[in-house]
C-alpha cells in the first residue's frame, strides 16, 4: 500500500484527530507559561554545560591564556587583547563568564550522575522491598526511615568525613544521601501496582521474578520517579555546591559553581562582589528552573489531576 493510500484510509476511518499520549503530555505541560520558560532555560543551561569548551569566550584554565594583568576587572571591561569580560574576572585574571560555563558543566555533571546512580540503586531496592514484602520490606524501610530522619546535609557531612575528599567520594556521598528518597517513592507506587491484574496475569504465566519486577512492575512505577528525580537532582546540585563551598566537596581541580562562590568569598570583603555574585545567580537559575519543571511534571503526571 502506498503512503498516500494509507493516509486516506486512516483519514476515512478516523476523521477526528487523536492525540497520542506524548502530544497530550506536551499540551498539558504547555498549559503553564512559566513552566515552559523554565524548560527552555533548563535546555539552554544543559546546552551550555555540554558545549562549555566550545562556546566559552576564553579557556579559564589554560594558563598560557590567562593573564594576571587582567585580574579583578569589573564586569564589562575589556582585556588587553580586546576580549570583553562581560561578568568581570577573578583574582587570577580568569574570565568569570567562562568559569561559570565550565562550572555549570561540573555541577550539572556531578548532580545528574549521582542522581542517575541513586535512581537506579534506590528504585531497585524499593522494588525489591515492595515485591517481596515481609521481613525484607520491614528491614529496608526501617533503614530508609532512619536515614530520612537525618537532614541530607548532615548525612552528606558524615559521609564526607568518613570517605574523605574527591570527585568520586562526593558522588558516592550524594548517591547515599539520595537513594532512600527513590526507594521510598518506588515502594509506594509498586505496592499499589503489585495488586493489579496484570501482575497477577504475569504471575499466572509463571514468568520469573526478575522479569515481573523489571519488565512489568518497574515501567508502571516510573511517573512519580521522574518527578522525584528532577527535584532530587536540584537538591544534589545544591548540596554539592554547599559541600564544595565548605571546602569538603570537590577538589580545586574541579571548579564547580560552589567552589567559584567560595573563591569569591575570599575577595568579597574588598568589594569585588561579582566573583561570587554571578556564579550564585547561575546556580540559582539552574535550581529554580529544575524545580519549576519538576513542579509542572508532578501536576501533569499525576493521574488524579488529569482532566
Amino acid at each position, binding site marked *: 500500500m502506498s503512503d498516500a493510500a494509507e493516509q486516506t484510509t486512516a483519514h476515512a476511518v478516523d476523521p477526528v484527530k487523536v492525540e497520542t499520549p506524548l502530544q497530550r503530555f506536551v499540551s498539558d505541560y504547555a498549559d503553564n507559561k512559566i513552566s515552559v520558560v523554565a524548560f527552555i532555560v533548563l535546555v539552554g543551561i544543559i546546552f551550555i554545560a555540554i558545549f562549555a569548551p566550545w562556546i566559552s569566550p576564553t579557556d579559564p584554565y589554560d594558563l598560557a591564556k590567562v593573564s594576571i594583568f587582567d585580574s579583578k576587572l569589573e564586569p564589562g571591561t575589556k582585556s588587553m587583547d580586546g576580549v570583553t569580560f562581560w561578568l568581570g574576572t577573578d583574582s587570577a585574571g580568569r574570565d568569570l563568564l567562562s568559569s561559570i560555563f565550565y562550572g555549570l558543566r561540573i555541577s550539572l555533571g556531578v548532580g545528574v550522575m549521582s542522581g542517575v546512580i541513586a535512581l537506579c540503586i534506590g528504585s531497585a531496592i524499593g522494588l525489591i522491598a515492595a515485591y517481596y514484602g515481609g521481613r525484607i520490606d520491614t528491614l529496608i524501610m526501617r533503614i530508609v526511615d532512619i536515614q530520612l530522619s537525618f537532614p541530607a546535609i548532615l548525612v552528606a557531612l558524615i559521609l564526607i568525613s568518613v570517605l574523605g575528599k574527591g570527585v568520586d567520594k562526593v558522588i558516592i556521598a550524594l548517591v547515599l544521601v539520595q537513594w532512600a528518597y527513590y526507594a521510598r517513592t518506588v515502594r509506594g507506587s509498586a505496592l499499589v501496582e503489585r495488586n493489579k491484574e496484570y501482575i497477577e496475569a504475569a504471575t499466572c504465566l509463571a514468568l520469573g521474578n526478575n522479569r515481573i519486577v523489571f519488565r512489568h512492575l518497574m515501567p508502571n512505577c516510573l511517573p512519580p520517579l521522574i518527578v522525584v528525580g528532577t527535584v532530587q537532582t536540584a537538591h544534589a546540585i545544591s548540596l554539592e555546591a554547599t559541600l564544595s563551598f565548605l571546602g569538603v566537596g570537590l577538589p580545586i581541580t574541579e571548579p564547580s559553581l560552589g567552589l567559584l562562590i567560595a573563591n569569591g568569598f575570599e575577595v568579597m570583603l574588598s568589594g569585588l*562582589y561579582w566573583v561570587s555574585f554571578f556564579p550564585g545567580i547561575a546556580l540559582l537559575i539552574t535550581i529554580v528552573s529544575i524545580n519549576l519543571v519538576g513542579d509542572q511534571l508532578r501536576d501533569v503526571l499525576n493521574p488524579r489531576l488529569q482532566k
Partner: protein
Amino acid sequence: MSVFIIRRLMQSVIVVAVMSLIVFVGVNVVGDPVDMLINPEADQAEIERVIRDLGLDRPLHEQYLYFVGNAFEGDLGKSFVFGESALKLIVQRMPATFELAFSALLMAIVIGVPFGVYAGMRPNAISSRTIMAGSILGFSLPTFWVGLMMIMVFAVMLGWLPSTGRGDTVEIFGIEVSFLTADGLSHLLMPALNLALLKISLVIRLARAGTREAMHQDYVKFARAKGLSETRVILVHVLKNIMIPVVTVLGLEFGSLIAFSVVTETVFAWPGMGKLLIDALHNLDRPIIVAYLMMIVLVFVIINLIVDIFYSVLDPRVRLKDAGQ
C-alpha cells in the same frame, strides 16, 4: 505504650552504636594524621612519642574498644590541634549553635506567620502572589550564597552590621549568650536570618494553607456573625488554630536547623559546633570529628525519639501499627 517506647529506645541505641562504628572506622581509614600534625622536620623519636601519645600505634579494633570505653566516661579523645578534650570543646561551642538555631526558629515564626496569614486571607491579590513567589525562591536559594550576599550588602556596602563572630557575650547560668547585649544582637541578626530563610518559606506555606482552610470553617463564620472585629477574628480564632501545625512542623525541623548551622556558622565565622567540625575536617583533627558526629547523632536520636513518642500519644494508629509488625 511502654512497649512502643522501649522498642523505639532500643532502635535508638542500635542507631548510635552502628553510627559510632561507621564513624570511627571511616574516620580512621581516611588520611594519615601523623603527616598532618607532626612537624616534618621532627626527628624519629619525636614522631614516635607523638604517635604513642595519641594512641595511633595500636591496632584499629583496640583503638575502637578504647574509644567506646572512654565514651561512656564522657571522654572522646583529645583534639590533635587544641590538645584539649574533644567533647569539652564541642560542649563549649554548643550554646552558640543552639542560640543561633533558636533565634532562627523564632524568626521563622515572627516573620513567616504574618506573611502566611496575609497571603492566606487574600490568595489572589498580587501582594500575596509576590509573597508566595518569594517563598518558592526561599526554597531554591542556596543558604551559603544568600549569607555571602547579606555580608556583601549589609556589612561591606552599607556597613550596618558586623560580618563575623559573636560580639560581646554575657554569662547567664554559666552559658555565654549574645542576644542580651546590643553588640551581640547586631552580630546575631544576619546569621539567624540566613539560617531562618528556608524555614520562613516553610512557615509561610503552612500558615497560608492553614488560613485558607480556617477562613471557611464554621467557627470563623460564627465569630464574624457575633460581630467581632476582623482583627480579633484573625488574631484570636484563626491564629490559634493554624499555630498547631506550624509549631509541630518547626519542632520537627529544629534538628535540620542545627545541621544547617554548619553552613551559616562557616559563612559568618560564628564560633559554634559546626564551624569547629569544618575546621576539624580541614585539619584532619579526628577526635573532634568523631566527637561532633557522635554528639550530633545523639542529639538527633533524642529529638526523633521525642517526636515519635509525641506522635504516638497524639495518634494511636502509629503505635498500633508498630506493635502489629
